[in-house]
């Protein structure tokens, strides 16, 4: 593979990412399955990078799940987005930063629609005023949270405690980076590196010492598409997407997978268990599965954050082998302690992918 060719494409897809003063909106899925990731993102921005991040507890879901399953019409989604922009405006911010990749896709789509069809923006303003008596300004900058971490990846590297290197042989860890479909496939210009060779996660991996694996099904969806999994009868199809990816990446023996979409991280983590249970198949040499990280978790590990404080004990695929590879010291006793130090109980052990 010619890296120069990839870098040329990356160079053509650069985007303006705001420097500071972010209005942050959370993710339904990430909060539910990876709450520690959102906390980690905020900790990194505030405590490591000393950025101003504001969030308003009154913000709601962006309705992305409903919109993409034809339950919520576009006008409704558009108005809810407008309400979030109004909260941003009221708080005095202009830089909008969603945690979820589908949300990012929703807001990108809405802003693009308003740009080409100003009458739709007028409609949104009218609906919002009628429903809430709120007004808004369009964000000056819309970036996904992974864009922010990407922007400051070198700064974070400078203060890192660990690198993405196997301490046993000193070699870079082999990392599969998976980009959520809604990040750049719809609007390639809104993603760093475009849709075919996105750079937002590979940039982080390389800045922190890892090696990015390019495997044939890199671009393939993980199967989290809402239509695919919301209907039970479709879930086999949803899983087959992840299976295709696992089979494609297996020859490269990645050390871990990192994703910027919360749904992708969940599926790539969970479906490995399901496939193991259904078929007895696992995708790494140890037979224990390939650990799947959110990019916040990856950044947190590099910065020396406690994996249990970040919530990594909630992963289906155990992360301990990866932590051992990197040389991260962790206390097994603390794995199932709550935020106040109380024991919260060990989850039922799965039949497959046991550590």
């Amino acid at each position: 593979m010619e890296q120069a060719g990839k870098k040329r494409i990356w160079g053509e897809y650069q985007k303006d990412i705001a420097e500071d003063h972010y209005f942050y909106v959370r993710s339904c899925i990430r909060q539910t399955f990876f709450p520690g990731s959102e906390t980690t993102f905020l900790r990194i921005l505030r405590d490591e990078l000393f950025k101003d991040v504001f969030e308003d507890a009154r913000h709601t879901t962006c309705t992305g799940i409903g919109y993409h399953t034809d339950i919520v019409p576009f006008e409704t989604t558009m108005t809810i987005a407008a309400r979030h922009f109004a909260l941003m405006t009221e708080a005095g911010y202009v830089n909008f930063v969603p945690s979820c990749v589908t949300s990012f896709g929703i807001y990108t789509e809405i802003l693009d629609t308003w740009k080409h069809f100003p009458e739709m923006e007028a409609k949104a303003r009218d609906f919002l005023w009628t429903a809430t008596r709120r007004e808004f300004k369009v964000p000056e900058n819309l970036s996904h949270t992974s864009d922010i971490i990407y922007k400051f990846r070198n700064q974070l590297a400078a203060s890192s405690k660990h690198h993405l290197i196997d301490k046993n042989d000193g070699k870079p860890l082999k990392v599969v980076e998976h980009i959520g479909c809604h990040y750049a496939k719809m609007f390639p210009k809104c993603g760093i590196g475009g849709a075919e060779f996105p750079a937002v996660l590979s940039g982080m991996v390389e800045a922190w010492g890892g090696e990015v694996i390019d495997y044939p099904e890199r671009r393939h969806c993980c199967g989290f598409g809402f239509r695919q999994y919301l209907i039970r009868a479709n879930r086999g199809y949803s899983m087959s997407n992840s299976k295709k990816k696992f089979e494609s990446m297996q020859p490269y023996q990645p050390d871990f997978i990192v994703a910027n979409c919360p749904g992708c991280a969940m599926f790539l983590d969970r479906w490995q268990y399901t496939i193991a249970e259904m078929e007895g198949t696992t995708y790494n040499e140890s037979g224990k599965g390939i650990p799947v990280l959110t990019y916040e978790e990856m950044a947190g590990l590099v910065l020396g954050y406690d994996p249990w404080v970040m919530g990594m004990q909630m992963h289906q695929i155990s992360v301990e082998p990866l932590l051992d590879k990197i040389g991260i010291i962790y206390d097994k006793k603390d794995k199932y302690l709550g935020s106040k130090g109380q024991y919260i109980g060990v989850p039922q052990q799965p039949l497959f992918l046991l550590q």
Partner: protein
Amino acid sequence: MNKTIVIVGGGPAGLEAAAALGSSPHHVLILEKEHETGGKLKNWHHLFPNFADAFEILKSLEKTLPLNNPEVKYDSNVCKIEQMDGKLLVLLNKGEKINADAVLLATGFDLFDAHKKEEYGYGIYKNVVTSFELEEMFKIGSFPDHLKDGMPKKIAMVHCVGSRDKKAGNLHCSKLCCITGVKQAIELRKHLPNSSVYNFYMDLRMYGQHFEELYQEAQEDYGITFIRGRVSEIAENSEGSLQVKAEDTLSGRPMKMVFDMVVLLLGMTPASSTTPISVSLGLPRTNAGFLSPLHQHIAANETCIPGLFLAGTCREPLSLQESITDARAAAFKIIEWLKLKDNN
């Protein structure tokens, strides 16, 4: 009275027009931006449909030029043309100015930049090559090492790269890629008898004489497989082979195949070197961006600018044969126009 006719472009159309104008009393000057004439023809090996030797054809085009007329200036880029006192002032990149009574634009075409089709991985995966590069391989008789080890190989040809493609910004058909794909597929089988060749196409536009027969030959005599369906993406496996995803519209199924090499059949796009000329003159372009003639049917070599004429692929995709014929027609039109101008 002898006039000065400037021909911009020393490719096949420019050379043939110069030869046709050579018998006139006028002074003909060819401005060629490279250091040799021949245009794209000099990079080609064999031509469809009869595998004629491109080098021999180029030499025969150059041989018909009368001695000392035309004059040829090499490394001469035209950066502007202005209308001045009933003539055309041609400005070169070196600062030279030429006062012309008539100008013939024979600036040719550019090949589509395959980097733009990012999903095909050109410039990233080394075994993804263009039809232009494949022609060079035929010419020098040298192929990548991994194709020469005697093991059976699979090669894919992807039609319509950069043509009939809204996303690439080109809705037009480049006309010649289909027959080029058939020709090159046959040549691959001749050079690499152990290979299997698969052509992924949208339509097969076998419009010319012996084209359809060549297509039949390709299937029956050379065993080339034609699959109707677009290639959606190409990715590289760990050992360098290429995974190609495509649709087979005839069976109605998506497909995935592994190849040792993929050839992208590049479309024809308007020559970028023509842009400063058309901008300076306000010369209109077709929807596809080629130079627009005065009338597509009855004035295909004339333009809305008095004294400015077009020949060859600067105005639309044309085969070599069509370019040569078009150049002769343009030459005739120029002579006729100059005569009329004199009489008036």
